[in-house]
């Protein structure tokens, strides 16, 4: 299995959709769809994320791998199938920016993990707060590119604390990578250094919430 997973990882890095599809089809004869996600897709994506952190692979490869796996998992799992039927409502957004790539990658990885996440796209502080309240979101993932947007996360956190909904806020993006203390400063509950951190962080948080 380990060898197959390595080959799967290589097919993703080479953006070889046909090879990815072939391996997933072959795996279907031996495994249930969720097992394919757990044993083939996720280990490969986690390794690719780790390799990006080490500088071995590029963001373009992380992005394309995430997209290919997202498509694959959408085909493997029916739309209402989730890893855990008790998942709390989750949402993801980019704060004050049209640079959506980071959010797109995290969304793809979460979907590839069987998480259901509402995609708010580009939002402002007030829009985020309103939508989180209306949708009774419990886990909010916020991506930022600019430092001033990252600092604005504090306004979101402060407003959400006032609602007493117990919303957990996870942040990511360049400003947080370049200043390791920034996520605590803005009051976030966790920070993802890279997109591949997201499934683990969400799993921990959802475990705490349940």
């Amino acid at each position, binding site marked *: 299995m380990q060898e197959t997973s390595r080959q799967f990882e290589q097919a993703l890095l080479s953006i070889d959709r046909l090879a990815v599809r072939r391996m997933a089809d072959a795996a279907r004869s031996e495994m249930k769809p969720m097992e394919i996600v757990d044993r083939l897709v996720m280990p490969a994506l986690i390794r690719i994320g780790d390799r990006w952190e080490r500088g071995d692979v590029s963001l373009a490869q992380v992005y*394309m791998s995430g997209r290919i796996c997202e498509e694959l998992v959408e085909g493997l799992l029916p739309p209402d199938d989730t890893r855990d039927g008790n998942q709390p409502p989750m949402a993801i957004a980019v704060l004050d920016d049209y640079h959506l790539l980071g959010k797109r990658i995290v969304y793809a990885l979460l979907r590839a993990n069987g998480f259901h996440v509402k995609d708010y796209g580009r939002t402002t502080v007030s829009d985020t707060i309103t939508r989180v309240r209306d949708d009774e979101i419990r886990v909010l993932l916020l991506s930022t590119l600019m430092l*001033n947007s990252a600092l604005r996360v504090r306004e979101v956190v402060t407003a959400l604390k006032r609602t007493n909904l117990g919303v957990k806020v996870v942040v990511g993006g360049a*400003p947080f990578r370049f200043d390791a203390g920034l996520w605590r400063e803005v009051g976030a509950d966790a920070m993802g250094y890279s997109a591949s951190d997201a499934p683990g962080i969400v799993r921990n948080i959802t475990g705490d919430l349940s």
Partner: protein
Amino acid sequence: MKKETMTSMQRTLTSLGHDEPDRVPLFLLLTMHGARELGLSIQDYFSKAEHVAEAQSRMRAKYGHDCLYGFFYAPVEIEAWGGEVIFSPDGPPNSGEPFIKNADMIGRLKVPDITKTPCLTKVLKAIELMKTRVGDECPIIGVVMSPFSVPVMQMGFGPYLDLMVENPERFTELMRINEDFCVDWANAQLAAGATAICYFDPVSSPDMVPRDHFLRTGFKIAGRVLARINGPVATHLASGRALPILDDIVQTGAAVVGVSCVEDLARIKSACRGKIAVLGNLNGVEMRRWSAAEARQKVREAISQGATGGGFILSDNHGEIPWQVPEETLLGIGESLRRHGTYPVKGAPA
């Protein structure tokens, strides 16, 4: 502190020639701080060339650094193509919704005529005004976005990566159009009085695309573009890592490389020595909350790792210092540079 014996231009050129000048050159790449200097909002500040020329002069006098920066904001080029720029009270103007909505639109793009594009003629006027003030005493830095990186703002990063992988014909077409504009824009700034061009190319960093992909794309594009630019060029990866492609960047004809704070400056310097000068690499995001002592320490570290033998300009790692960095920190950086950056400096042997 020893008396300075060189002008900013002499100091910079000596260092770019891989010799040691009187002290390490300092490029504080300040943009929005000019608004604070003049008591204006960021949007008002960038509305007039005179504002930028005046503030650049004032900031140089205040912080004692060695360049004037003709850079307004990254999406000024997007504005030129008809795209949207979003101003913020506390951050750099940002590009709005991408204006290339699908690959077919690429075939209909027309290269903006620089002489008839107000947002660009304003930048040129600012450079002309700066040149009138400093002549050849201080370098003026013009800025272009690389043809390979500007599509992140033109069409969004995800769709651009999709284009690269799935539609090579349209990708090539977009690069051809962008190259023509980039060359014209760089040469217009040089003609207006810029001393050198900073070629921002973050997508070429191995953080963004694999090196083999870069060699097929961004590397060749940079080689073609830099050959047509009528002056020296600094390639800046805007916080992206450079080490794995340093020799490639040298081959494109760049005289300087802007490097990231996530890389070991001593290793970078060692790889660049005698081949290309290094610009960097203070962490601009962290700089916001540095104490005076931390600022001093960071400057000393960078000097000790990068300055021996020349070929080094102290700067931030991104090419733009965030609005949130306070004046006291900038003053501290300048003061520490003058204290510890006088040659011969303490550091790794040349």
